[in-house]
């Protein structure tokens, strides 16, 4: 008796069992959309009760800057997820860009190295996009291989040593304050406003949702689907680099571990904010809420004085539950 092969009537019974009531489907859909804002409220409430130090102005500034960095990266990640792709090379791009800009010798201008860094980031995004659209490599494998390659390039470039000083310009866009708001937060808001405008009011924005929602229909409607996916990847890499610049301005040095968590966290933030892996669903407000949720959770671990491994556990928990929720939501909605 082989357990894999079952009798016909059992198969039919399993089909019948898979019915979900409309009320449950609506509930899961709503939970998928509102999970991040509700989670943020809960975390803030818990912080108010158990860790008042969370509301310390210094700590709030830390949260704001960390949120800005992850937020900038997550905007790009959301765009890529919206077109049914994924980018696991953001963490590596972020670190590579920071290294290039920080390690400028005194001879060359900061603007030259900035242009170099952005050109490299664009090229990486282009390569990701081409691999995914023209060679039909699964997105996570293509971008994961790219991450491996970029990290190798950075290692070959720096010989494994952290060095260089952070230019003043980078400090200006991250840690300096305008009034009581850190400049990083302003960069984050600017990026969000621009991308929000583009995906809401321009033709390209509609294309992104169309390609993610149903690629073949989008192609029949005359949209160059491959081009849309490639552009999304280029934008994502460029934003990852921008995030890296803000981050290196904030922490003031560049080390080897820089950027390792950003792959997973940017995906987790997008997903818990209501973006699905199957594309076409999601928005920037949700992503921003997801970023705030994740960052304040990780910060709470520090403020409460828990050991650092709780951060990994927290990240994993958020990612697993968010993915599970969105997977179920997508499955129920698409039946």
């Amino acid at each position: 008796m082989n357990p894999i092969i079952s009798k016909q009537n059992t198969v039919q019974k399993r089909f019948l069992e898979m019915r979900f009531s409309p009320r449950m489907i609506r509930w899961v859909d709503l939970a998928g959309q509102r999970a991040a804002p509700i989670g943020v409220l809960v975390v803030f409430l818990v912080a108010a009760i158990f860790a008042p130090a969370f509301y310390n102005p210094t700590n709030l500034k830390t949260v704001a800057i960390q949120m800005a960095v992850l937020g900038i990266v997550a905007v790009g990640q959301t765009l890529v997820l919206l077109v049914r792709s994924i980018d696991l090379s953001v963490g590596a791009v972020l670190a590579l860009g920071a290294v290039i800009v920080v390690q400028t010798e005194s001879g060359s201008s900061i603007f030259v190295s900035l242009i170099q860094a952005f050109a490299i980031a664009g090229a990486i995004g282009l390569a990701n996009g081409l691999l995914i659209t023209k060679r039909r490599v699964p997105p996570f494998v293509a971008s994961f291989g790219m991450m491996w390659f970029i990290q190798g390039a950075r290692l070959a470039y720096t010989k494994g040593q952290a060095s260089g000083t952070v230019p003043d310009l980078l400090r200006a866009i991250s840690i300096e304050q305008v009034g009581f708001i850190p400049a990083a937060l302003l960069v984050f808001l600017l990026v969000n406003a621009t991308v929000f405008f583009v995906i809401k009011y321009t033709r390209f924005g509609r294309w992104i949702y169309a390609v993610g929602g149903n690629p073949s229909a989008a192609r029949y409607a005359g949209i160059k689907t491959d081009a849309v996916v490639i552009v999304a990847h280029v934008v994502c890499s460029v934003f990852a680099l921008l995030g890296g610049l803000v981050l290196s301005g904030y922490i003031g040095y560049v080390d080897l571990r820089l950027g390792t968590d950003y792959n997973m966290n940017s995906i987790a933030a997008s997903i818990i904010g209501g973006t699905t892996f199957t594309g076409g669903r999601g928005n920037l407000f949700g992503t921003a809420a997801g970023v705030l949720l994740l960052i304040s959770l990780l910060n709470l671990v520090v403020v409460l004085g828990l050991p650092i491994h709780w951060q990994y556990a927290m990240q994993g928990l958020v990612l697993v539950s968010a993915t599970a929720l969105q997977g179920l939501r997508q499955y129920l909605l698409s039946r």
Partner: protein
Amino acid sequence: MVTTTNEQIASQSFWRKVMTFVRNNVSILLIYGLIVLVGGATAIFSENFRQFSNLVSLFRQSIVLGLIAIGQSVVVLTGGMDMSVAMIARIVTLIVATIFNIHSSDTIILPMILLGVGVGASIGAFNGFLVTRTHANPFIITFGVASALRGIGLAISNVPIRGVPSGYLSIYDARVAGIPVNVYAMIIIWALAYIFTTRTRAGRALFAVGGSERVARLSAIRVNKTLILTYVISGIFAALAGLFLLARTGVGDPSAAEGMDFQSVVAVPLGGISLYGGKGSILGTLGGVLLLGLLSNVFNIVQIDVYYQQLLLGLIVLIAVAAYRSPRSL
């Protein structure tokens, strides 16, 4: 001469058979051809590489990745992916090492191996449960599980754990006829894995599910059970890799198996298994594993700077994934 003799017909059909065989096994022939090419070229230039002991140790170094890659292949054949394998291996290493640290004796070796395999199987079952019940993206959800496991690993220990009994180390050291026992074991395990995927019902069900879940379901294959089974198998093999690592290093290393998740994901398509599932052979994965091991061995012989090694490997991986053909599904 117009008449065709029987011999000619026979030889024609022989060549046709050969051609069909080549066409059906292009990726496997390619990977083993590459191994022979790289290995042969190195053997000509390097005295040390030609040594029998070096070849044996090359094979022995591939065992950890080999074990993990068997599990990964089984998962990928169904169209899934398991990114938690490296962390499962690490957790198993740390748990077993911690218990050995408390009670270091040869008598509990067998129970510890069973415990390790049990831990791996249960994490795998949890992965399978998540994937089948929530219909979530397996890659991401196992990535999340890996992150949680990384945290648990740090919680167990962030310094090497000592106290592994000497009997346990013989898993790595024991030899029969000059060749380590684990090399024989590895060959047997690969043979069993090949038989499992090609000759058993459950093994064929993997291909059916990977080809099309819908068709598999209509063919009365229990899709969810098959999927959970694959993640359990993957967890068990990851646990075995962790147990082997413990025997190799002799201490519970808190950074054990770092990067193995990615390497296993690379070895699988390198050997020709489609990442969309349903196509390929586990023998190809063995080729991929051996090629990766061979390359790092060659890098050391040619004395390529360690900083450039990752760059080169990354380049090879990108070329490999770009070169393989996948279905035009849209």
